[in-house]
């Protein structure tokens, strides 16, 4: 197969291409509700893919990715509100800053030998730090929240990312595809193989002459930088930012359930996971509304139970199983 294969059999590739075409033409005949759900799915597929670089490829468990989402969200929003700088230019600031923050955390953790569960807790600690810090930061209105001026739906301004859902739909769809291609390129490059070696056995990787510090840092920085785009999108799509929400640990967790359920370390796992989980949450909404159940928490209980069943039935993730069963995977992968 060529440079852009992602471990799919011809049947799998056809299916993926068909799905992509369908998603591209969908806005012509789909309503706003379906678009909104799909935007959410793409968003989770994208940030899940970004997180997967760090955990799925290089084996570094981060439970604090909300930090990167929130930081980039706040940075691009403040630049836009206070200085009138558009989100795409804002990313030129937000991505490097987020990468530097990731690098600092990674440096501290790796240089001081913080690994495994301890590393995960350290990432939570920094996200919580940011949450409480932003809660008391006057320049972003603290816990009162930051709001972006809401635009009229008729005027679409791509450069300022103001407009109808269909614009956000295409932006996020494109980002998801780009992330997939980028991750595929990384995974099949030298650095990708080094990551996998580190994930499988770090001692052995070091013995084989891999500078594990450097490549683990690389994974953290790439993952943080990719997540920054998700943060910018979040800020401009939802138009409001609250430290209690955007930096909260539940956001970090929400972001990583998809890739784990989908299949850790696989390219399509985060995408499949996002479709499954968001689809599940939305269908639960519909079913409960149809049954007339108006119980706060009922949806989450069912969601948790489904999650539990998937983990027990398919601990390796849904995508590897699905690919095997339907013959979507390339032979030998």
């Amino acid at each position, binding site marked *: 197969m060529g440079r852009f294969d992602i471990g799919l059999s011809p049947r799998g590739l056809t299916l993926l291409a068909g799905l992509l075409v369908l998603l591209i033409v969908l806005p012509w005949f789909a309503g706003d509700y379906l678009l909104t759900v799909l935007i959410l799915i793409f968003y989770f597929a994208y940030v899940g893919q970004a997180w997967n670089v760090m*955990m799925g490829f290089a084996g570094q*468990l981060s439970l604090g990715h909300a930090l990167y989402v929130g930081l980039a969200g706040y940075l691009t929003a403040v630049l836009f509100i206070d200085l009138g700088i558009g989100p795409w230019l804002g990313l030129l600031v937000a991505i490097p800053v987020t990468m530097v923050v990731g690098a600092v955390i990674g440096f*501290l*953790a790796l240089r*001081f*030998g*913080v690994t*495994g*569960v*301890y590393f*995960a*807790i*350290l990432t*939570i*600690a*920094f996200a*919580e*730090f940011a949450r*409480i*810090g932003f*809660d*008391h930061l006057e320049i972003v209105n603290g816990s009162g929240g930051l709001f972006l001026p809401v635009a009229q739906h008729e005027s679409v301004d791509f450069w300022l990312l103001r407009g109808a859902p269909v614009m956000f739909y295409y932006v996020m769809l494109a980002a998801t595809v780009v992330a997939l291609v980028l991750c595929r390129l990384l995974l099949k490059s030298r650095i990708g193989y080094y990551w996998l070696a580190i994930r499988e056995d770090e001692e052995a990787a070091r013995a084989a002459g891999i500078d594990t510090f450097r490549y683990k840092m690389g994974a953290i920085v790439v993952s943080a930088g990719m997540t920054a785009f998700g943060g910018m999108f979040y800020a401009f799509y939802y138009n409001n930012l609250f430290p209690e929400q955007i930096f909260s*640990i*539940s956001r970090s*967790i929400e972001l990583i*359930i998809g890739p*784990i*359920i989908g299949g*850790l370390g696989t390219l399509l796992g985060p995408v499949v996971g996002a479709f499954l989980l968001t689809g599940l949450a939305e269908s639960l909404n519909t079913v409960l509304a149809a049954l007339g159940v108006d*119980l*706060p*928490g*009922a949806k*989450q*209980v069912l*969601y*948790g*139970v489904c*999650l*539990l069943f998937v*983990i*027990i039935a398919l*601990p390796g993730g849904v995508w590897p199983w699905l690919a095997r069963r339907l013959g979507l995977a390339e032979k030998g992968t």
Partner: protein
Amino acid sequence: MPAEIYLNVAVSGILTGLVYGLMALGLSVIFGVVRVVNFAHGEMMTVAMYLAVVCFSAFGLDPMIMLIPIAAVLFVLGYLLQKGVINAFVTGPESTQFLLMIAIAIIIVNVLLIIFGPDARGVQTSYAYDSFAVGPLLIDATKAYAAGASIVVAAALYAFFRFTLIGTAIRAAADNHTGALVVGLNVQHLYAVTFGLGAACVGAAGTMLILLIDVTPALGPAYTLLAFIIVITGGLGSMPGALLGGVLIGLTEAMAGLVFTPSAKSMFGFGILVLVLLFRPQGILGRKT
């Protein structure tokens, strides 16, 4: 401000910290033996808190009396959870274990939300406003009882691991999983007992904590984090470390609330956590691995 205020707040922080310590002890015991990180720890504590609230409001039973019964209920729940679900994941990858516990946590939080609603619930005891005067100090009676009970429970747990046959067997299984299997120990049962004991610890802590604070379903995740901070500060797997970490965090939070703003107090807990992780990753009383 007179010096007595600082002293009073410090004592109050230490007493609350002992209850925190008991909560964290449960987490530490589970991790030390089963090697599973219990991400549903705070959620399990809220279950105990609600049990205490129900016993108090429906039957007028004081949480001090319900300490052992509620701990026993949590023991059974913990035992069944480990036996029925978690045992199959003990040798699996960390990320799967993590997700499993998260799923359990989500279910607990929302079942509590369905049953009790989002409003805060608490107990109002007859001795809620009692206090002892010790020299210049004014010690809150409720906090003193709760802290005392926490020390007793922690001591009982320590004695169990030290002096009973099953406690020794659990320590053996923690030290050498394969070795324990070879000499014919029923490791799955021992793990379930350990998880039950950890749950009982956090159950006892929750029953005491309801005397000090009100409970909401959303309280769980915050206390899961707090338990992590405490055990890592004290040393994961070290029993005295958990209590010491609890006291340290309780004291820090109380002083930070007094000197700075109360809403920023948990920042100091995280500050301590980061410093400990960087400079003494095994914790203050932990052993180097």
